[in-house]
């Protein structure tokens, strides 16, 4: 009897982890960090490595955080030999795909910072997916990043 309960729980766990519908909250997000900001600027960037470990593609559309008014997804790009950044309204991450939110690639853009980001500070950030699900992460503010 005891074993049966055990196996049932295990089965439930397996079903849960291979759910047919990908959920943003199951995304693997590692090493989220941001840079301390100058008191005069009202923008910041958040970086991390994101892997879609679910069996389905997910589409990131933005996010929210208590430290800024707005959160956008931006990608660095070159145009006519000049460097700039593009606001990505939707970023599709295929099943198993790793996406680098790192300097020079993608970054989460914090716009309208309520206070400057201070070194050692940790703040929450919710990444929003197109299906309405969210992945909550914690971001560590670094003093200097090389």
């Amino acid at each position, binding site marked *: 009897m005891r074993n049966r309960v055990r196996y049932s729980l295990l089965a439930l766990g397996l079903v849960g982890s291979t759910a047919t519908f990908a959920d943003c909250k199951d995304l693997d997000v590692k090493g989220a960090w941001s840079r301390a900001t*100058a008191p005069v600027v009202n923008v910041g960037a958040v970086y991390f490595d994101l892997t879609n470990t679910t069996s389905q593609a997910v589409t990131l559309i933005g996010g929210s955080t208590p430290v800024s008014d707005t959160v956008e997804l931006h990608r660095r790009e070159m145009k006519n030999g000049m*460097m700039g950044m593009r606001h990505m309204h939707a970023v599709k991450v295929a099943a198993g795909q790793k996406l680098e939110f790192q300097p020079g690639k993608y970054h989460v*853009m914090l716009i309208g910072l309520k206070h400057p980001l201070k070194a050692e500070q940790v703040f929450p950030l919710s990444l929003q997916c197109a299906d309405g699900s969210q992945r909550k992460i914690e971001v560590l503010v670094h003093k200097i990043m090389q």
Partner: protein
Amino acid sequence: MRLNHKPILFLIILILMLGIAAWRAGLNLLPVTPPKIYGMTFSEPKTLAPFVLQSAGGRAFTQKDLHGHWSFIYFGYTHCPDACPITMLQFKQLQETLRKTMPKQRLAFIMVTVDPERDTPKLMQAYVNHFATSFHGLSGDSMEIKAFAKQLFVGYQRGEDNTAIGYTMYHSDSIAVINPDGQFAAVFASPHKAKNMAQDFLKVAAYQQQRDQSLFYR
């Protein structure tokens, strides 16, 4: 008819002796070749046309402010959260490295805004102060900045405005290296790494010194 070789021989010996004397005195009679760096060193530094930018406190910043020391100039804007802080951090590391390797060398680190509409001189100085208070943050008249940037091979244009920051800017990511005569001497290409820039700067400065000592350019 027999030629008298004596005067020719005498001339050759004289030229050789002068050459050796010049070489012993640290002077070079031959042209020198610009070093290979991550970017480009100009074989002949380019003299800049006069310009007027603005620094904090209502002070003008002109070509005269580039004389008497080497300068590194980067163009960016304060609404830029990714590339600009990265370059400023590399500037800071470059400054720290060169202070150790060339303690007597006077150096200026300058960031000029490509977005004078939003970045005032005061804002620019406050921005660079976040990285090092010895850095210079400059703004100014948009036409002046455009012309100055063009001289330093830097282009920029306004990007899309479908973002909550209002609009983004597209800009060249290179760093201009200015010699103590206020001439455009070299370009550092991106991505910028302080360690590489420190090594490249030694080459650029050494080239300038060889060039100054070469009689070929007088």
